[in-house]
């Protein structure tokens, strides 16, 4: 602004102080250029950070947890309100002629593949519609092997492994873990055994007939739960987890990873922290604090859960205004009918989506 004022002053002095209208007209392009430069700088910095993270990953470096001032400040912001307003803003209909430019800009910024979009760009009325776009038929072939489970989303594998130790902890980053029971809820059907029964249960498992041992549980969880102190128990043998992160430009619909029956839905209305790489390194209990929906069910081999807007329950709304300041309410739970059978989903079925705002 001071730069523009100086320019105005100098131009006014050159013209004998009679060109204030010309000075004002210069102010708008100046602000636009400044905004474009700022956005460019932010984008360049993001690309640099992404590259740094990628290089570190290739070298096998593990990120450690470091809470910082920015993360603390983030926790003070009204993120839920901001997200809701962002949702409102992205629901505004864009003029048809402008749509391809806006969506191409989005795709360029977040590396989306526009050729896969099911409809022509000018048919997505809002940015929100574009964000949850479906894909052309055959864009995502489902692995036909009956002995494999497939990825439910497009994304990056952050973590995976087997839950073995007492408390069944998932590592957020090096040196900081959270309990899977806190993530899924205290009422979870998570197959755990108490410490004192561990030995006995292990012996029983050795003698379990194969058809019984093949019964397992499935969960897909999308983002944030309450902290629950895990009991002194260990997960049963054969309990695995996988954390997948979706970038803003990724395909945001969620598909069933296997044939399974969804028995219970649990909605945790928590915070709305970002879940990017930096946030996982700086916000403690990130996944336990954030809002999430957990789907719990049974498949031939075990157990699963997931968080998002559910196509199998379209009336469920998340990101609602909070009645209380503190996030102490228990999760809202719904048991799908008929009890014990629930909603049957086939491998690859579209079941949910992450909405915008």
């Amino acid at each position, binding site marked *: 602004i001071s730069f523009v004022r100086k320019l105005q002053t100098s131009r006014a002095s050159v013209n004998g102080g009679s060109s204030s209208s010309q000075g004002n007209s210069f102010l708008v392009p100046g602000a636009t250029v400044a905004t474009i430069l700022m956005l460019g700088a932010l984008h360049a910095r993001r690309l640099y950070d992404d590259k740094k993270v990628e290089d570190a990953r290739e070298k096998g470096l593990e990120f450690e947890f470091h809470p910082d001032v920015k993360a603390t400040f983030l926790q003070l912001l009204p993120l839920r309100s901001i997200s809701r307003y962002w949702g409102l803003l992205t629901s505004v209909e864009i003029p048809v002629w402008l749509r391809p430019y806006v969506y191409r800009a989005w795709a360029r910024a977040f590396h989306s593949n526009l050729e896969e979009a099911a409809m022509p760009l000018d048919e997505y009325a809002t940015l929100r519609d574009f964000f949850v776009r479906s894909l052309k038929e055959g864009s995502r072939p489902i692995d036909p092997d009956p002995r494999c489970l497939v990825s439910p989303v497009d994304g990056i594998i952050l973590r995976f492994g087997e839950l073995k130790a007492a408390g069944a902890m998932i590592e957020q980053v090096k040196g900081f873990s959270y309990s899977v029971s806190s993530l899924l809820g205290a009422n979870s059907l998570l197959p755990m055994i108490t410490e004192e029964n561990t030995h006995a249960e292990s012996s029983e498992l050795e003698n379990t007939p194969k058809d019984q041992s093949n019964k397992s549980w499935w969960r*897909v969880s999308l983002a944030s739960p309450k902290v629950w102190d895990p009991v002194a128990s260990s997960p049963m*043998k054969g309990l695995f987890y996988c954390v997948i992160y979706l970038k803003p430009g990724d395909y945001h619909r969620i598909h069933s990873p296997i044939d399974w029956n969804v028995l219970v839905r649990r909605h945790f209305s928590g915070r709305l922290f970002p879940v990017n790489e930096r946030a996982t390194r700086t916000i403690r209990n990130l996944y336990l604090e954030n809002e999430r929906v957990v789907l719990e069910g049974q498949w031939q081999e075990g157990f699963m859960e997931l*968080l998002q807007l559910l196509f199998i329950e379209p009336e469920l709304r998340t990101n609602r205004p909070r009645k209380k300041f503190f996030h102490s309410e228990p999760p809202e739970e719904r048991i799908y009918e008929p009890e014990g059978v629930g909603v049957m989903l086939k491998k690859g079925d579209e079941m949910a989506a992450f909405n915008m705002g």
Partner: protein
Amino acid sequence: STVVLVFQAPVSRSPKNQGSSEFSFCTRKGDRIRVGEALGRWHDS
């Protein structure tokens, strides 16, 4: 956005058990994966 999967899958109950099977992930940390691609497989041993 993040998705967390937690699931039970077949594991070898005992090295002596001939009828056992084992689950293993077929991805690596940091890999990009797409809907429908195999995350893990299990095989009868």
